């Protein structure tokens, strides 16, 4: 307990410094509303339902795009590793799209699907798919041929081989790719909502900022930051459980 407290003490120090700086007018309260005001604004936003409404919209977009990316991307990576012709056909395309800065897709998805949910989901799906595909592909390609042989000598057929050997072998790299995708999905969600949306966390941040209610803006920003952090931590716990057999 004390160890954890000592470890996270610096964050507390930062929070106190923030409050003090704003209260003592070292920094203009306009630019930096005191933390206590931010907390109050957060409670108000929850009570009004603004934060919940926009939050649910954002979460729906995030989860839909992310799951699509993981499902399609993972399957594509495994398929590319299993069939040579598919590998030959798709690998150059994957390599081509991999270095594309994903944010460039924001205006295109708007062009195609407008300002609503569809464009956000498509954006997250397109942006997050490639890291998952690459993770699944590299993981599956790296599976030890000796393990494959062992399973075959014990009578495993092609489908069993994919399920029993190739999938688990691919898991560590696949899960790492998914983690990258998770981080990316938050970035793409928030930035696309900041830039072009009428709902969602990003929209709410921009709206509150434009109206000068900076305490509320800070509250939503911190909420999103916390959600992104919490999602990553939760994912890591899950990942550790999945990979408990690793050295």
């Amino acid at each position, binding site marked *: 307990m004390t160890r954890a407290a000592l470890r996270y003490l*610096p964050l507390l120090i930062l929070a106190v410094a923030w409050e003090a700086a704003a209260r003592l007018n070292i920094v203009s309260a306009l630019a930096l509303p005191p933390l206590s005001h931010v907390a109050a604004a957060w409670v108000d936003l929850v009570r009004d339902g603004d934060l919940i409404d926009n939050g649910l919209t954002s979460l729906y977009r995030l989860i839909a795009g992310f799951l699509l990316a993981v499902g399609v991307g993972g399957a594509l990576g495994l398929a590319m590793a299993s069939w040579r012709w598919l590998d030959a056909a798709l690998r150059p*395309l994957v390599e081509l799209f991999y270095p594309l800065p994903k944010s460039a897709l924001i205006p295109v998805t708007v062009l195609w699907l407008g300002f609503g949910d569809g464009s956000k989901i498509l954006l997250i799906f397109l942006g997050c798919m490639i890291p998952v595909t690459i993770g699944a592909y590299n993981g599956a390609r790296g599976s030890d041929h000796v393990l494959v042989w062992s399973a075959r000598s014990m009578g495993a057929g092609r489908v069993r081989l994919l399920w029993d050997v190739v999938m688990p072998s691919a898991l560590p790299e696949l899960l790492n790719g998914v983690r990258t995708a998770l981080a990316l999905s938050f970035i793409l969600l928030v930035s696309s909502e900041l830039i072009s949306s009428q709902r969602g966390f990003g929209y709410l941040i921009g709206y509150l900022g434009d109206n000068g209610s900076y305490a509320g803006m800070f509250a939503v*920003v911190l909420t999103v930051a916390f959600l992104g952090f919490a999602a990553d931590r939760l994912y890591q716990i899950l990942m550790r459980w999945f990979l408990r057999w690793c050295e």
Partner: protein
Amino acid sequence: MVRVADHSAPAAGADGIARTPTGRLAIAARIATRSAAVVLLLVAWEIFARSGKVTPFMLPPFSAVVVRIYTDAITGVLWINLGLTLYRALAGFLIAAVAGIALGAAMSRLRPVRWFFDPIVSVGFPMPKIAFLPIVMLWLGVYDVSKIAMVVFDAIFPVVTATIAGLQAVDKELLWSARNMGAGERELMWQIALPAALPQILTGLQVALPIALIVAVIAEMAMGGYGLGGAMMGASRFADSRGVFAGIVEIAIVGYALIKGLAFIRARLLAWHQEAEERS
């Protein structure tokens, strides 16, 4: 005591698919198949756009996009936008690189520094920092300073964590033998520890560079004005789909060139490393 937290990053797979065959012939074959794939994709784009299945608004033909890029190049708009985006991304990246390596080194050498920054880094890394963009705009305005600050804020985390991880992994025997030969603390850091950690530090930089570009483009999109991101957003507002697709092609080329450039620098710097031999 204070333990260095799990900094493991949601890292973009910096190597991965890129690590395969060897030999000049294989490399030439790869370049050939890759450019063939690019050409095929562009031809497919052109045919599909002209087939009438989609409106030119949804997908303008590639040739029209090329014409657009060419026009922008002649009028000079392209070079202004390109230069500004590159300047913002690279300035932010360089500041993040220097500050990140310095902070990482300080954190791995000095207990109090580590104690203070460790929770900040481990909480800050996985956060979607782009959400802070309006706050940064509020503080620093909508010009270059705020965009560069945003890039630094996002790109510094992978550099810090990679530096710490790299320094931690330096072979104890290497440090002991250097100390045995009379090296001082300063020499130890500059001549032994940092060079030995260089492969990992460079990997951190290779993660940070695409982030820098992504964030620069987003900041430009959000704030408007010149720059590739701003131009794309402007085009999108006026339903100028050629402008949007021109932006994608330009940004894709910039992204590709930057990643390749850094990979080239890595190969140069790590000529002594075994990964260089594996490649040749």
